[in-house]
């Protein structure tokens, strides 16, 4: 078949090699399809959202019924938790307690943020608790015992966390050992390294320097000035509103569907009420702790990376379908290694934050409870254990739940046994909600 056969009669002019090629015109003889002439009709089965508030409420109801619960269960849970503890102890609903919750949530929140990346791949990192303890020990040994510059020690510590995470990711991605086993080994081994570094004393007291000073309990944004909290709230609201309206304008110019203005205004107003309320409450105590400012800034950056960059798209793709990612030219091992490196870095950062709350790096730094709390926070916040679904904000929501419970139990003077039972119950409830909503999503064709 090296030469074309004789041409059947009735063919187009052979001198024109492009005969039959015109994208706007069907080739000769082909049934002319109405592709360009008629706009494709909207699928009649598709439920189209109406404009305005009514449509928004309808769509919200439909999403909830379809199992797309989003942040709803955790927000309801949070309100119930606050109500219960406020009824038990009038001191619970106070500015001082809010400040306490916000300050103590940061360390575990950072572990949970790193875990969100790992959970998005559908994997798990059991080593974050041990890595966080080890990071605090590394920092303490370098800055206190070896008198390194504090910032240099911070950088080396974070790099160590990144290297540890990357190494675990490499063993998982390149050698093919299940991540669960690799990080379980890390869970034990890094705790051992931490104990070895801390030596016989078991505890090294830290000096309030560098990042440690920012993470410490008496460091507030703008020195705790009343304006500080409102400035932060203002930045958040203006940034959120502006990005929403810019996006809407770009979409309208390009002629693709955009969010209606009413919805954007409603979302911005809700955020404004929440942000300024929190700012007002924290101002009635001492202001916004600097560690919370750093935590929120990191969440904004991570959210941007995950939703707006090709890297984030790769993470979601690998979490959704490994084979599809591979065929799309995504290097699955590189995504896995980098995600574990991110998890390790956040674990190290969280370790520094946790150490700063007690101003010491001690053997309790690698408390296995920290690991469980961080995983629980990510899952409670709405990041699926099954991969491919979640947001970094779930780390914030989840850790708020965990710390609200911890603060309440602490205030009621409940013993450790009760605390463990309640936290375990909350974690189980979160996973059950995750599994149930996934099942509902499947049956309504959304998963």
């Amino acid at each position: 078949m090296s030469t074309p056969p004789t041409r059947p009669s009735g063919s187009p002019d052979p001198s024109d090699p492009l005969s039959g090629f015109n994208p706007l015109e069907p080739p000769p003889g082909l049934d002319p399809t109405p592709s360009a002439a008629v706009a494709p009709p909207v699928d009649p089965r598709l439920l189209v959202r109406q404009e305005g508030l009514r449509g928004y409420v309808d769509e919200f109801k439909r999403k909830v019924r379809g199992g797309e619960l989003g942040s709803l269960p955790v927000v309801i849970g949070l309100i119930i938790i606050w109500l219960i503890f406020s009824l038990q102890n009038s001191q619970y609903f106070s500015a001082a307690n809010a400040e306490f919750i916000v300050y103590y949530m940061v360390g575990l929140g950072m572990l949970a943020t790193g875990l969100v990346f790992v959970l998005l791949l559908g994997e798990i990192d059991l080593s974050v608790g041990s890595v966080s303890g080890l990071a605090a020990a590394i920092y303490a040994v370098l800055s206190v015992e070896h008198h390194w510059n504090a910032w240099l020690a911070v950088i080396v510590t974070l790099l160590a966390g990144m290297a540890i995470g990357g190494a675990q990711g490499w063993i998982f991605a390149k050698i093919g050992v299940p991540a669960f086993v690799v990080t379980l080994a890390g869970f034990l081994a890094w705790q051992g390294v931490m104990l070895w570094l801390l030596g016989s004393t078991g505890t090294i007291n830290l000096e309030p320097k560098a990042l440690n000073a920012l993470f410490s309990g008496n460091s507030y944004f703008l020195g705790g000035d009343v304006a500080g909290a409102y400035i932060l709230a203002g930045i958040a609201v203006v940034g959120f509103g502006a990005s929403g309206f810019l996006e809407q304008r770009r979409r309208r110019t390009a002629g693709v569907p955009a969010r209606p203005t009413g919805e954007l205004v409603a979302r911005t107003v809700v955020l404004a009420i929440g942000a300024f309320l929190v700012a007002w409450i924290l101002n009635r105590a001492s202001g916004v702790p600097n560690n919370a400012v750093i935590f929120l800034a990191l969440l904004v950056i991570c959210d941007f990376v995950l939703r707006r960059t090709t890297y984030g798209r790769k993470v979601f793709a690998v979490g959704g379908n490994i084979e599809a990612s591979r065929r799309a030219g995504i290097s699955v091992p590189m995504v896995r290694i980098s995600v574990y490196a991110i998890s390790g870095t956040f674990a190290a950062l969280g370790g520094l934050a946790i150490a700063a709350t007690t101003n010491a790096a001690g053997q309790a730094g690698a408390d296995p409870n920290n690991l469980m709390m961080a995983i629980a926070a990510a899952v409670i916040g709405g990041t699926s254990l099954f991969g491919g679904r979640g947001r970094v904000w779930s780390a914030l929501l989840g850790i708020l739940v965990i710390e609200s419970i911890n603060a309440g139990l602490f205030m009621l003077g409940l013993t450790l046994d009760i605390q463990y039972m309640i936290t375990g119950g909350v974690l189980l409830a979160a996973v059950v909600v995750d599994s149930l909503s996934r099942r509902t999503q499947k049956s309504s064709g959304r998963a």
Partner: protein
Amino acid sequence: MTDPVAGSYASALADGEPVLALRGVSKRFGAVQALTDVELEVHAGEVVALVGDNGAGKSTLVKSIAGVHTIDDGQIVWEGRPVSIHRPQDSQHLGIATVYQDLALADNLDVVANLFLGRELTTHGTLDEVAMEKRAQELLDTLSIRIPSVRIPVASLSGGQRQVVAIARSLIGDPKVVILDEPTAALGVEQTAQVLDLVERLRGRDLGVILISHNMVDVAAVADTVAVLRLGRNNGTFPMAGTTQETIIAAITGATDNAVTRRAARATWPRAEGEA
């Protein structure tokens, strides 16, 4: 065979040189000779159906073109010059897009994200969602693909819709040849018709299409040329116009080696290679 197909078959061949040609391609797996001296040609604006029984070597041939396997012998000629394809990326860079049977779409991502996966449009290092959504909508419109919205997760699409999304995805890189592996295998009547419409539209856009199918009705409906593989060898190449399904089935099953079918093949297609 209806006139339209014969007409476009001719128009495809007006441009004499094939966009993709395989010359004497062989592939061994250990002791198994999967392909022996296989020849195949695809012209722009031509739909070549690649048919054959299970184990005939269709998948191996397609994977060799797609870069999943490397050929042991023979030549792959792209637009008149010999090329070597060692990796899937080589094939993609030439302009060959492959849609595999398992569609490999990420269920959790929406249609736009799936269409552009691995080839995202960016501005200032960030995803340009607006441009991607616009281009996705335009692409789906020109192909007359009807899906409820480009912003719903692929998980909520039907089988037929997923298939057309997978095919549309292969067109994002502006390929010249599209390979479809069993595109209608799991589809219902209506969805099959949609996919076949889409194949015709690809031909209308002057793409070369290699269609692997077991379904003779589909093959008869859209193919210009039928290439039959049997036990890793060419067992005839027929123009769809004027060839009966019986002839093709005979070539597939190997019952071609009798006087009647040889005669029939000679009568319609002088260059039939049934005696290979």
